[in-house]
């Protein structure tokens, strides 16, 4: 994880790829759902949420799509096993680790930095739970995984990596913090 050199009011790190699977399944299909629960021990999360266990994070993408992240890359074998079992159901799990690049935004103004591009309501987040938002930042698609108010993971398509770095450079420039007068 490299800190990106920016004159910024937040710290931005380039994580690169995170080991991940995209899972598509019919959430009313018990067989598919049970494969998920059995193998990773995580229930399907509700909308805009993510659930974590043993270094794995299952994120809600849509009613029939989930993103399984393995941030620590310790569970590759588990992921492979899980992928094989999912493929035996009518669902599908596919390796999408190379599809995205991830950034970590750190600092008191991390949430405010995102407010310069993300139209979704960030005021109402319950950071006590893990929030996962699939939204846009300016003109590009973005996923946001909230660790806390001060630590936010962001992913974009790998083709937008440089655009995202440029965005951080322009939009988090020191002196452009979002402030209320009181």
């Amino acid at each position, binding site marked *: 994880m490299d800190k990106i050199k920016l004159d910024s009011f937040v710290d931005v790190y380039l994580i690169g790829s995170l080991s991940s699977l995209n899972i598509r399944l019919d959430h009313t299909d018990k067989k598919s759902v049970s494969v998920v629960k059995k193998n990773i021990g995580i229930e399907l999360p509700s909308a805009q949420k993510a659930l974590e266990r043993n270094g794995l994070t299952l994120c809600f993408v849509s009613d029939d799509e989930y993103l399984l992240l393995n941030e620590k890359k310790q569970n590759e074998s588990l992921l492979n096993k899980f992928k094989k079992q999912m493929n035996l159901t009518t669902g*599908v799990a*596919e390796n*999408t680790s190379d*599809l995205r690049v991830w950034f970590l935004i750190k600092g008191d103004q991390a949430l405010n930095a995102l407010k310069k591009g993300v*139209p*979704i309501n960030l*005021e109402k987040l319950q950071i006590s739970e893990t929030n996962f938002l699939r939204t846009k930042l300016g003109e590009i698609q973005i996923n946001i995984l909230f660790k806390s108010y001060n630590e936010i993971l962001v992913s974009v398509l790998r*083709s937008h990596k440089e*655009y995202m770095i440029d965005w951080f450079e322009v939009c988090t420039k020191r002196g452009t913090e979002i402030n209320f007068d009181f």
Partner: protein
Amino acid sequence: MSSRLPRGGSRVNREKLVDFRFNGKNLKGFDGDTVASALLANNELLVARSFKYHRPRGIFTAGEEEPNALMGIGEGSFFEPNIRATEVKIKQNMNVNSQNHWPSLRFDFLSINNLLARFFAAGFYYKTFIWPRAAWKYIFEPMIRRASGLGKAPKEYDEEHYEHIYHNTDILIIGGGLAGITAAKALRDRGLSVMLCEKDSVMGGRYLQDCKSEDRERYKKLYESSIEILKKSKDIAVKLNTCVTGIFDHGFVLAYEENQGLNVTTKKALWKIRVKNIILCTGAIERPIVFPDNDLPGIMLAASARDYLQKYGVLLGDRLVLTTNNDYAYKTAIELKQVGIDVPVVLDARASSDGPLVKEAGALGIRILFGKCIGKVEGKRKVDAVGICSVNGEGTIEELISCNAVAVSGGWTPNVNLWSHCGGKLIWDGDLGFYRPDPDKTPVGKDGETNMLALGGCAGVFSNYDIQDQVPRKINQFASRLKIKSKRYIEPNIFSKELERNAPPVFVLPYGASKDKQKRMYIDFQNDVKVSDLQLAAQEGFENVEHAKRYTTLGMATDQGKTSSINGIYVLSQSLGKSVDTIGHTTFRPPYKPIPLGLIAGQYTKKLFKPIKKTPIDKWNSINNAIWEPVADWRRAYAYPKVNENLEDTLHREVLSVRKNVGLLDSSTLGKIMVKGPDAGQFLDLIYTNMMSSLKTGKCRYGLMCNEAGFVFDDGVVARLNEQTFLCHTTSGGADRVYAWFEEWLQTEWHHLKVFIINLTEQYSQIAIAGPKAREVLQTFKSIDLSPDKLPFMHFMETYIDDIWVRVYRISFSGELSYELAVNSNQAEELWNKLLKAGKKYKIQPYGTEALHILRAEKGFIVVGDETDGTVTPQDLGMEWIVSKKKNDFIGKKAFSLPHLNARVRKQLVGILTLDTDKVLPDGCHALEDGKAIGHVTSTYFSPTLKRSIALGLIENGRSRIGSALEFESSSKESIFAKLVDPSFYDMEGSKQNG
């Protein structure tokens, strides 16, 4: 003359001098001065010329309603035209220039228009420049365009910092005056998030500023305690210097933050706010009385004259006449008198008044004349004297009073623009002479419920006592209606009951003004709209207020009629003999005040202007001198020119490298969509025109997709990975579109199919290795056996190159022996480098998209978007072979039986060979028959392989014309003759790609 007092001015720091330039003249102001206050302090009364007649104009207001003092401010990359001098603070070395004059502000050549004003009445342009017809385009329009316009557009790139900010809040309070502050206090601790936007740099509006001296301490205490409460409240966020400029459907609000506190640049942000409910506390704008010669420099709204005194210690003049119809305006006369300014007379249009302010003015020795008004103003570029007349007469001058400033007040108009933006209706208050929000016809939110509440001045409630009395009550009712945490808010009313600002309306004086005077009575200062213009509009049948507005340009200037609208409506109603309420009002539209165009773009300029997608091999391409081509959102290597090599030579080299040796192409941008499930084959049979369910595992098949109308939509190779899994390749620009297309059909029509799809476009990168030596290059990696029987054409295999997993497709888009290698994107560059290294002894060369296009055109392969344009069928392309006759149904099938898709005159794809082999047809040029266009060229190149020009084209009934010659028209109208041939120019039997 205007000047600055030796002390005073709550907004300026007299310790800090600021140098600035006005029209090249070096001037000084204080830190905190606006351009307007600094100009007045330097006795610069003439600051502008009007739009039409180029009449001399001075500063008329102290806020965003300013119609006259528009300036070009800044220099170079920070220059901005049409800025209201009343809103911008001066900065060290700021360059300020007046606009719309030549050669100078004082001696403006086009002020000749003023002398010809009698000919330039409303509708002058429409009536005059009719004949001769051709003169409009070549003489009149260029001449008028040159003469018109205010500021000049900047010539340099705007380097100002703009940005967009998203914010969500439960309640937005717009305006931080007494009503806004009280509303915010009443809404705290109710479990709601509240945002308050105040356009000024301080809260409080007018209530503290306009209070009597004996009340000041009490009011100040209230103000300070209120601000303290707001600061302590966790629910309330206050944003100063932020003007709400528009309210749209479903509680979407735009606000313009202009923080001028920064020394070098000004931070400008567009806030995009989503709100559930809005409390409108936008106050009111003072309305002028229209009188003859009322547009001269030195005439100003009464409250604004007071603002300059209180905030900046600046005097409009040293001998000021006040003309008014209300007690409240007397504050100006009183305050000026108290600082030693001569106020020779107050002209009050009313018959009498015994209000406390009137008495106070009288006690100060100010002469008050009731029933009187101004009948004329003397002076050329500034006020020298006013003539007093009776309000009821024609304007016969009874007395001439020498003065150099006039303050005017005709009462106050509620600031209702924002209420109207999203559908709130207005009602006419005939007693007070203004439109105010109709509480029964409010704007509504997404659920159809009222989502806006107007309080204070903008609701027509002006007295501080009434505001303090009304706001807590209304907020409590509002909270109760919304069923939010009900905590009855009570606040003791510290104000005394007063009705100072309410007065019977007066719009135009004298009431019986002669025709001559009416032609000198200005309603809209910026656009030079006079009383006589509106009367003419009415006379000529423009009875609808919207028509009259457009005919006269009333309210169409940058101030959007803030000081002129009501007076204009009144004059129109009088001219038509109707009451104002039957006339109605013009539509208020966002933005409330002009915003810079740069603000709309926000941060999305320069490198953020357009998101450009880059492939994993982009860095290598960049280092190796690639020139770029945009392909949908991607940038792709167009070609790789070597040093001192021209583009033509580059393309020839790259093409021949593929034909003779081997070439390497970054084709990572191809769309890759995985389709999986027991019904995947059935689904793809419905999507593609040809059969996919019969495809064997390990094999590939080229497929064509059509839309419901039977027109080609996308194409690509489909690979069957296993019984239930297909990987569909799409065009580079089509990946997202095709993915959405698949989802739409799955979710709407074929939801019974057990199929899931995943877009893997960026998971895999793809590298094409093409040319007769491609197999040899790949076989240098020991692990691969690519012999034709192991991997025949249109088959794929999964293997490793060294330790890199790859899926090798034996497919070709060049007509040569070719392999496409899919690899996990993180290893794409590594694989690319390995292939280059392995291919070195085979003279491998990277080739770009243009060489790719030449190669495929030589072979006669189509490109969706080149050979197709949304109206081309597979049959038009000569691809009947790909339309299944066995399948019961697929998208587009029904359309193929329609008569017009089988008509003989449809354009069909053919090859085109120019008779002059060196002559390359222009792309898109028309094929002519008897002078009539019967088709066009879709792709055209000079073929390095065939050493001649080749082209593909869509020609009416083209296949039956094969062998004949046609005329093609070049852009220089030169005729080029070419022969129509089969579209495949190279290796028709396919021995090279199949070998």
